[in-house]
């Protein structure tokens, strides 16, 4: 939201703080000021001028005008505006003035030297009118500065959505006096010509209105247009502009109805009927439900409460009788309606911050004054129509001084606290020393301030957070509670990276299309209800699709690489939050058609899970049908190791996918030392002739179980296929090491074991080569 420096100055007596300093002070004590922008610098040069004489220029649309520019004397300008006519008072821009970033120079146009120019409202930055030059003197228009405040930092401050609220902060900061622009005592105590009926005080705590007759709808004075245009509100006509002006000044949204377009003399504030419609000022037609609050006359809705007025009851050029609304609505209800209709207006933005019900009459009083200026002859008819919920009993907040000091972490004396709170118009009394009883002004009481903690901020920001000296908290020197899961994940990361894998991060999202491609059914996923794009439609149940994409993209730049990700698979559960299972996926890519890196992947599995085993597994859609394995560790299956199916990744790529939660659970808590052999061991080699697809792991297990208790170690030596072995056969060689802890085994003992293995394997149907 933009704030005019001049406007604030009007509301704070004797404010001399320059705009940049004011902006800094407000940032430190009130809200975040983002930028400072000068506007209307040209008004230092622009003056009022009367057109004396207008002559055509042969062969041109332009005309030559002679103007009386007051202190600048008589000037000749070339002007193309159709409304340039003798007697018109308008705005004259002398040469040397910068207008819309361009310097106006004395120059010859159509053979006539133009000494400056006459300007339109758009050129002067007062409105959007390009049609002709302005029709009155630019009186009251001065160079100004706009302070742009981050709206988020005003979320909790309904009072700061108007200049007067900001001026109150400024006055409190600088110690100057705040001026009250509204004078409600000017509204006569008389019967109102309209009556108000509120269906539900919770949704509309207050509705106030005034009726005016004999209005003239016309453009506002230029100073008013300029002020609205500067802060981003488009001037429309004098009546609407006054409602916007009051909103920008007091934060109170208002609306003007054409009384002659209303049916009956009662204004109803009620829930919309099912299927009721309204055509709004923006020309859009809205279907309503009872969730929306409407302002209605006896024949139907005339406005969407707190959001936008209706087109049918709007002020038009011929309007002379006006009903001026100033009301207060339930914040959440307005917010819901405006977000359901996707219609955020200046009014709804303010109402959803919880407006002060006390502000409605103030707004009307200020409007009364302004209407008399902008619509001479306008007449207030009768008195105030005002229906309000019974006032909420306001309770004072008990603020103990010692508690405040403990919260701030700096000493502060009672007088200082009193001064600060009173400068912000809190009511403070102190019945006993060290204890304040603080009553909250109505404009801060709707949502912002209700407990003593809220007052810590008020005192803290005004005394200055920079006056608080950092202080070390006194805490016990105790080690914090452990997080074994996180430690475990970090260890897995370290080991995996040490094996040459680079870490990647992928999104938690997957598109429906990608999920289907990998054979995961969309309905098995947790789905996003409001994704920005279909890429974020589902939450991943596997890290594999992301890793496959990483492989594909990186293979454009690298011939071979290793990558890994640690992330969560998100699985649906009934009636509770989804199961988030941490997984490691590590992948290896090699361009070309060599054997493939499956055993490199197996090495990583062994680094992470010493002694883990693989078994052939039923392939999934994206797995190479002859190169897919389940990973077991300590008897528990906990992952997969597979080569990608060539239709998923060209060339060779392998992935290890492990459930880290299981892996952590299976990891040994501690290691025990085994004594080193003190006596020599004996080793011999055996080759088993087996069918080509017999599993070496199974052969090794069989040998191991035949070897008996003296087996110290069995290790794979080599694999051989080819002559002289018959087709379909292979030879797998192992080295068997026997040992005892208490002696050297005799050659007879070794031979006995060896013979037992050979005998046993032959019984199992294998041929043995020695």
């Amino acid at each position, binding site marked *: 939201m933009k704030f005019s420096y001049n406007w604030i100055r009007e509301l704070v007596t004797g404010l001399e703080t320059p705009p940049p300093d004011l902006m800094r002070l407000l940032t430190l004590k009130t809200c975040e000021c983002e930028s400072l922008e000068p506007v209307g610098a040209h008004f230092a040069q622009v003056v009022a001028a009367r057109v004396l004489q207008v002559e055509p220029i042969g062969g041109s649309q332009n005309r030559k005008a002679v103007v009386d520019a007051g202190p600048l004397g008589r000037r000749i300008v070339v002007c193309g505006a159709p409304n340039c006519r003798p007697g018109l008072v308008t705005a004259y821009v002398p040469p040397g003035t910068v207008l819309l970033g361009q310097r106006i120079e004395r120059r010859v146009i159509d053979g006539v030297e133009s000494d400056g120019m006459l300007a339109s409202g758009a050129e002067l930055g007062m409105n959007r009118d390009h049609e002709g030059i302005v029709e009155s003197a630019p009186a009251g228009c001065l160079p100004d500065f706009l302070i742009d405040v981050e709206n988020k930092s005003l979320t909790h401050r309904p009072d700061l959505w108007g200049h007067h609220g900001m001026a109150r902060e400024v006055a409190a900061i600088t110690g100057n006096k705040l001026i009250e622009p509204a004078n409600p005592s000017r509204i006569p105590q008389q019967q109102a010509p309209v009556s108000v009926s509120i269906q539900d005080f919770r949704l509309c705590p207050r509705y106030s209105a005034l009726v005016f007759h004999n209005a003239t709808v016309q453009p506002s004075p230029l100073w008013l247009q300029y002020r609205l245009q500067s802060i981003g509100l488009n001037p429309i006509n004098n009546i609407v502009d006054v409602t916007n002006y009051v909103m920008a000044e007091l934060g109170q949204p208002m609306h003007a109805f054409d009384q002659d377009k209303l049916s009956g003399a009662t204004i109803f504030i009620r829930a919309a009927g099912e299927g009721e419609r309204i055509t709004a000022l923006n020309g859009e037609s809205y279907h309503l439900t009872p969730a929306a609050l409407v302002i209605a006359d006896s024949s139907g809705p005339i406005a969407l409460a707190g959001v936008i007025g209706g087109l049918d009851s709007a002020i038009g050029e011929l309007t002379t009788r006006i009903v001026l609304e100033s009301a207060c609505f339930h914040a959440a209800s307005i917010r819901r309606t405006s977000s359901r209709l996707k219609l955020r207006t200046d009014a709804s933005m303010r109402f959803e911050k919880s407006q002060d019900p006390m502000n409605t009459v103030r707004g009307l009083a200020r409007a009364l004054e302004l209407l008399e200026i902008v619509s001479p002859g306008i007449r207030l008819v009768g008195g105030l129509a005002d229906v309000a919920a019974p006032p909420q009993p306001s309770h004072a907040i008990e603020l103990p001084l010692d508690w405040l000091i403990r919260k701030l*972490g700096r000493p502060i004396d009672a007088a200082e606290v009193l001064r600060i709170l009173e400068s912000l118009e809190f009511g403070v009394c102190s019945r006993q020393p060290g204890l304040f009883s603080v009553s909250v002004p109505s404009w801060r009481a709707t949502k912002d301030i209700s407990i003593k903690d809220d007052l810590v901020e008020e005192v803290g920001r005004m005394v200055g957070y920079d006056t608080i000296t950092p202080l070390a908290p006194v805490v016990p020197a105790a080690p914090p509670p452990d997080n074994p899961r996180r430690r475990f994940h970090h260890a897995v990361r370290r080991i995996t990276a040490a094996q040459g894998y680079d870490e990647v*991060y992928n999104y938690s999202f997957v598109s429906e299309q990608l999920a289907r491609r990998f054979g995961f059914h969309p309905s098995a996923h947790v789905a996003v209800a409001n994704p920005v794009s279909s890429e974020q439609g589902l939450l991943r149940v596997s890290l594999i699709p992301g890793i496959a994409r990483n492989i594909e993209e990186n293979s454009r730049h690298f011939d071979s690489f290793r990558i890994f990700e640690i992330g969560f698979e998100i699985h649906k559960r009934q009636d509770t939050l989804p199961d988030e299972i941490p997984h490691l996926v590590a992948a290896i890519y090699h361009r070309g058609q060599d054997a493939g890196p499956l055993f490199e992947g197996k090495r990583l599995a062994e680094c992470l899970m010493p002694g883990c085993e693989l078994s052939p597994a039923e392939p999934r859609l994206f797995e190479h049908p002859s190169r897919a394995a389940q990973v077991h560790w300590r008897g528990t299956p906990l992952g997969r190791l597979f080569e990608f199916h060539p239709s998923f990744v060209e060339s060779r790529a392998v992935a290890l996918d492990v459930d880290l939660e299981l892996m952590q659970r299976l990891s040994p808590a501690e290691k025990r030392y085994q004594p080193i052999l003190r006596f020599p061991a004996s080793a011999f080699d055996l080759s088993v002739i087996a069918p080509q697809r017999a599993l070496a792991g199974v052969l090794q297990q069989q040998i191991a179980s035949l070897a008996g208790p003296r087996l110290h170690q069995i290790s794979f030596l080599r694999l051989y296929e080819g002559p002289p072995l018959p087709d379909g056969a292979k030879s797998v060689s192992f080295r068997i090491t026997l040992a005892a802890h208490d002696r050297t085994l005799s050659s007879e003992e070794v031979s006995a074991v060896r013979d037992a293995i050979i005998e046993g394997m032959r019984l199992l149907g294998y041929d043995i080569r020695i």
Partner: protein
Amino acid sequence: MLEAQLQSLAASARQRILASATPEQLQAVRVEVLGRKGALAQISKDMANVPPQDRARIGKLLNAAKTELEAALESRENEFAAQALHARLDSEWLDVTLPATGPRPGALHPITRIQQELEELFLSMGVAVLDGPEVESEYNNFDALNIPPDHPARDMQDTFWLTDGCCLRTHTSPVQVRGMAKLGPPLRMIAPGRVFRNEEVDPSHEHTFYQLEGMMVDRNISIAHMLYFMKTLLRRIFGCEVTVRLRPGYFPFVEPGFELDIQCLICGGSGCPVCKHGGWVELMPCGLVHPNVLRMGGIDPEQWSGFAFGLGLTRLVMMRYGIDDIRLLQSGDLRFLRQF
């Protein structure tokens, strides 16, 4: 007679040892002179013919000649061995500028690196590291943090809603709620993790990024304590003394709430493009924990108080490494990731 023969033999052998050009020539000398059938063995046989009165003296001479020649042989052999070794080593010259072999260790993701660094820092300060889920209940993400339904603060956060009514957490703050329930007061905790905002992605906006939540609850925690903690933290993060300032900031789960700015480290506060010429960089929201939040976490706000803060890890990573496009972090692009 035998004595003269011995002397002449020794002299000639010495000569031949010194003159031998190869280990083979030297070996020939050894065989001819010191071998079992060599010249010295012959002389030793001839000793029988030496008159007894000379035998002891000549025997001594013979032994001396043998010892001397053996030493000479050995010395010459050592020379040859040394030469051979030198020649071999010389032939084994390597071009040390060739590339290294063996596996190149992988790179950890820059967010992992910073996150681990911060976790270690906090652990050293006695702060527990907690986790929370990426999918959160609406209650934990909003209500328990004093953001009731229809609160305008919900607008600040573009939420990914899930079809079951849960949401992807929009901040790490829900871990405050979990932390209070898990640890109870007094407590010191951080929770780094992935958070989500429903917005379009461009070089400076991501729908997925990382935050680090922090919370301390104890007796009589004040703004002064929070300032101390923040300054200590930032000194470690940036490796230098940083000037900070607190200004009011609105977050429903703290009261009072602050934005903590640091004086621009690029320009030192005089103004530059990084700080948008303001001299200050907005770094982290923080504040004293709102009593409603303590209450919802099962902690009595009359007995306990605390502070909380949120650090943008992704932003910190980008500042630390000068990364200008946030999308790189989740691109999986090794040309980027291998730089860390």
